[in-house]
Each structure stands twice: as structure tokens, then as C-alpha cells.
């Protein structure tokens, strides 16, 4: 493998990893605040692509306007899922909430089949993103550069929100102790909704960029990426935002490099994530950046 080819693969890996990272953040944020795996997250990601698709194709609005609108709409969808499937069960046993999460996932998938149709649709990619750029000897689609830049920018904004703002402080407090946060005057329900809003919007950004890169959308498109990104969140240390991003990159780059270096294993591409998960769970069950603060009682 020449250096150029290697670089080509790395760029692709980073780009795919960025998409995984954006989705993985949503899993980790929800887990952090509710100790719940939001199984509907992959389907929220799918819904975002349809919102964008219909905005562009049916209403033929300018893409940038549609994308912003679709992202906000997806954030609201996240809140709706939280209010209906999870909030109503806040005091129920964990297993009930887990089942409700799986139910919400199936509901969204089947709603999409009924409303949007089961046949794949071609996602319109504005030329702006498709242009091929020549850097040295490697040629890359412009989108391949845009994706990581957008991801990193969003990550820094998110870290600022979580670590430097009052809402972020409330989120961190709620993630440790709902009761005491309430005693401090924090509106726990609002804080949880806000978390779903942010996580779902990030999944929407990931979803739209995914659809630009792989321009075919269908109602079950969120299932495998959803599963892989959940794994990415676990690998990085679930509950930790930076960890989710690291996990996403490891998974994206690893997957591309596996196919590139060992083409005979191409069929095992999806299995890579699971094997990595098993390895991590054996050697570092808390994930790469999993937190271990000793709590005094």
C-alpha cells in the first residue's frame, strides 16, 4: 500500500468516524442523565434524513434552510420520544423503560415505512458537497473534509455547553443525583428534555451528512449505524462525551482500515464493531475514558 492510498483510506476513516461520533454522543448523553439506552436514537437519526429529503424534494426549499429546519425538527422529535416513552415511566423498573425504548424504536421504523414508504429514496446532494478536491496525489470529495470539521466544531460547542454554562452545570448535577438537583431548584424534567433535544439534533446533523455521503435513505437505515454508535459510546466509556467521539473515530477508522488492509474480510466489516466491543469489555469494562470517581458515603 502506498502512502497516498493509505492517506486516502485514513481520510475516509476519519470521515466515517465523525459520523459515528455525532450519533454516539446522543447515546452517551442520554445514558449519562437517565442511565438508559435510548434504542430509538438510531431511528431518530433516520427520521432526520427524511425531514431533510422532503424539505428539499417536495417543498424545494434551499438546502441550508431545510437542513437547519430538519435538525430542529429532529430535536423536537427527540423531546416527544422522551416525554411519551420515557418520562411516563420515570419511576418504573428499569426493565419497563428498556422495553419502552425498544418499542419506541420499532414504532418510529414502522411509522416511517407507512408514511414514507419502504422503498429507498435517492437523497439529493447539492453539487457544493460533491466537488472533488485534489490534495497532492489523493483526490477527495469535499464532503469528506466537511464532515470532520463540522463534527469537531460541534464537539467543542457541546463541551463548552456542558462544562461552562449554567444549563450544562444543571445537566451534570442531574446526571449524578435527581433528588438533590431538585432541592437546588433545578427543573429535572426540563433538563432531561434539553438533553434529548441536543442529542437528537447532533444525530440529525450526523444523519444529514450521512445521507449526503451515502445518498440513499430508507426506514431501516438507522438500525446498524445506531447499534455501532452505541458500541462506540461503550468503547469510549458510556456517559463521557469525549469518550463517545474517541469511540466513534476508532470504530470508523478501524472499519475502513480493516477492509483496506484485509480485503478478504470485507464481509466481516459490521462484525468488527462487535469484536472490538467484546475485547474492550474484557480488558477495560468502563471503556477507554470511563469515569471512576470514588464517591464517599
Amino acid at each position: 500500500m502506498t502512502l497516498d492510498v493509505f492517506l486516502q483510506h485514513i481520510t475516509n476513516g476519519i470521515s466515517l468516524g465523525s459520523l459515528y461520533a455525532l450519533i454516539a454522543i446522543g447515546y452517551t448523553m442520554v445514558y449519562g442523565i437517565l442511565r438508559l439506552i435510548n434504542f430509538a436514537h438510531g431511528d431518530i437519526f433516520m427520521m432526520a434524513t427524511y425531514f431533510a429529503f422532503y424539505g428539499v424534494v417536495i417543498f424545494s426549499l434551499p438546502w441550508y434552510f431545510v437542513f437547519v429546519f430538519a435538525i430542529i425538527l429532529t430535536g423536537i422529535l427527540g423531546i416527544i420520544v422522551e416525554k411519551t416513552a420515557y418520562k411516563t415511566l420515570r419511576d418504573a423498573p428499569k426493565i419497563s423503560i428498556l422495553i419502552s425504548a425498544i418499542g419506541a424504536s420499532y414504532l418510529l421504523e414502522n411509522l416511517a415505512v407507512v408514511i414514507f414508504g419502504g422503498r429507498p429514496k435517492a437523497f439529493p446532494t447539492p453539487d457544493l458537497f460533491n466537488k472533488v478536491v485534489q490534495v497532492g496525489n489523493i483526490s477527495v470529495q469535499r464532503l469528506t473534509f466537511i464532515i470532520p470539521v463540522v463534527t469537531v466544531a460541534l464537539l467543542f460547542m457541546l463541551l463548552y455547553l456542558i462544562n461552562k454554562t449554567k444549563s450544562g452545570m444543571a445537566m451534570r448535577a442531574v446526571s449524578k443525583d435527581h433528588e438533590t438537583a431538585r432541592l437546588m431548584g433545578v427543573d429535572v424534567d426540563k433538563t432531561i428534555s434539553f438533553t434529548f433535544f441536543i442529542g437528537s439534533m447532533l444525530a440529525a446533523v450526523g444523519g444529514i451528512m450521512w445521507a449526503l455521503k451515502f445518498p440513499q435513505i430508507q426506514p431501516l437505515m438507522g438500525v446498524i449505524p445506531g447499534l455501532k454508535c452505541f458500541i462506540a459510546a461503550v468503547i469510549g466509556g458510556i456517559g463521557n462525551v469525549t469518550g463517545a467521539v474517541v469511540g466513534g473515530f476508532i470504530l470508523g477508522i478501524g472499519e475502513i482500515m480493516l477492509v483496506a488492509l484485509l480485503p478478504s474480510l470485507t464481509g466481516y466489516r459490521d462484525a468488527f464493531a462487535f469484536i472490538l466491543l467484546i475485547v474492550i469489555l474484557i480488558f477495560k469494562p468502563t471503556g477507554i475514558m470511563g469515569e471512576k470517581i470514588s464517591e464517599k458515603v
Partner: protein
Amino acid sequence: MMLKIEDLIVSYGGIEALKGVSIEVEEGKIITLVGANGAGKSTTLRSIVGLVKPKSGKIIFEDKNLQNVKTQDLIKMGITLVPEGRRVFPNLSVLENLKLGAFVRKDEANIKSDLEWVYSLFPRLKERTWQLAGTLSGGEQQMLAVGRALMSRPRLMMMDEPSLGLAPLIVKEIFRIIKEVNKKGVTILLIEQNANAALHIADTGYVLETGNIALKGTGKELLSNDDVKKAYLGDSVHL
């Protein structure tokens, strides 16, 4: 009366933890509620702040029934609770924990001066401003829990066993600060197993026994009461 609890009954799945408790808290005073393990002390406080739903009875704060007030809205009414077991946020710094105490306040300038005041009460916290609360010692965590409560500028501060598990010197320190805070006009409802220390600083004391108020009196009266002496003030445990 600032806070009036009337005939409070609380049951956990059929077992009555409070069987008709009545307590009055007069503004500006230190009221203490002492009792053995499992007597229902924490249950009383948790009912006041709405973390436990009573079966019957009334909780009136300044002529307002607290029954339908949400926990998160109490702090705006001037009520705060230093919970049992400190419950500081381990993943937040000392400063952030204190800021969280002032979460609902908008008067930035006063928040700053209150922060200075809390730091002057607990110089140890000032030294550890940036440290994560989870890495503080037990005593420091208790100071932080008290400081955090003070940051809301409470009018009624309720405390659930602030001396639990602390060395005698730190206990003394905490009780000194409770008195100092009270002198500033903050009403205190103090729950303690350390009946001796609590009754010494209290204006009024209640003795809670398995869900019932067994005795009520001034701190002095209870300290010299024979039953109280036998049950709660005996020498330290001999082994």
C-alpha cells in the same frame, strides 16, 4: 409560626413510619428533632420538601400549604435542606457545587458576596475551590453541603444529621456555624442523633420515637429530663 406540621402520617407500603407528627417551627429559632435510628426523622424532612408523599396531615409554611408545591420550587420560597449523607455533586468542583446552591438566584452581585461569606465560614472550602467535590474528605463534604445550602439565602434551613460520621472537632465546628447562621436570622430545623449537642444549641426540641412525638420542651428542659438522659444522653457506648 413559620412552619407548622399537623398530624403528619406517612406510610411506606403499609408500614407507618410517621403516625401523626406535629411540629412547630418559630421564625428565627433553632428547633431540633432528635430520635434513634429509624424513628422517622428523615421521613419528616423528606415530607416537608415533597420527596415523600404523606398519607395525611398538613404542612404549612407561612400560611401556604406545601402539599402541591414541587420540590424544585421550595428554594425560591426560602426553604433549603442539607440532606442526609451530604449528597454533594461528586463530579462538580467545590465552586460549582456552591454555585448550584444559588441556581435559581439572579442577583449576581449578592451571590458573589454570599460566596465570600461562605468561604469565610469555611476557609477550607476556599482552598479547595477547584477540587472535585467527590475527592473531598467527609468533613469537607459536610461543610460544602452546608455552604451550598447557604448559597440560596435560605430563611429556613433544614439539616439532616450534619454531624454523622464526623470527628468531634469538626462536629463542634459545624455546630458553631449553625449558631452563627442562626444569628444572621436564618431559622434552623436540625435533625440529630447527637442529642446532647443538638439540645445544647436548640431553643425548642422534639423527641421522636417510632413515628410519634414523645416529648417536647426547651433544649434545657429536655437535657435535664430523666427519660431523655437515659435514652439519648447516656455515656458513650461501653464495649
